[in-house]
């Protein structure tokens, strides 16, 4: 089982998402929570990087954090999977190591 990377910072404030995309390995999962969910909007400055990463990694976004920021599901990049907190828990069980990018 691969690593689950958890990113919680906006890519427009810090470079933790960029570092994560650079260093994560094929097969890894990347879960965007809190302010990091703003990355997944279609046309965002990091959209191309996320689409490129999705060729060999799974990218998830925490639904309640999208809702809290008014980001509608039909405005996010195709291929991003939305999970709730139960889904967040499940992702942490399906990956054998976790890395929080703080």
């Amino acid at each position, binding site marked *: 089982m691969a690593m689950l990377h*958890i990113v*919680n910072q906006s890519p427009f404030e810090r470079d933790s998402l960029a570092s994560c995309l650079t260093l994560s390995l094929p097969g890894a999962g990347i879960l965007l929570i809190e302010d990091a969910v703003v990355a997944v909007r279609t046309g965002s400055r990091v959209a191309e990087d996320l689409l490129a990463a999705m060729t060999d990694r799974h990218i998830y976004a925490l639904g309640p954090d999208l809702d809290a920021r008014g980001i509608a599901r039909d405005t996010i990049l195709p291929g991003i999977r939305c999970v709730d907190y139960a889904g*967040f*828990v499940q992702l*942490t*069980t399906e990956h054998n190591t*976790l890395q929080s990018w*703080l």
Partner: protein
Amino acid sequence: MKFGIMVNTGPYTHQAAHTAYQFTRAALASGHEIYRVFFYHDGVHNASRLTVPPQDENNLIQQWSDLADAHNLDLVVCVAAAQRRGLLDAETAARHGKDAHNLAPGFRISGLGQLVEAGIEADRLLVFGD
């Protein structure tokens, strides 16, 4: 599965404190075990029983206390981080000659060894911070 949770931010500084609580609740609801929740750095502010948020707002400290009561959680506050920030239990307050203590019900104060132990004993250690 056994989870260790580490909380590094206070309730009014960053969303991470709330995310940690929501994750812990969801893990319990899914039938998992929370081996320990360790509060470090500004995370110790989650354990002050003297916080009085407006009644129509979430009271995260109370929510942690209630969750600990309902599920017999081990909520551990780092002693060094706590003392620096004025978060004291009765024993520590007495030892330092302070006239008050503010550790909320369900929390206990201990050392970093408790975090290391959680890392060893839990299947997953999850860090929430800024």
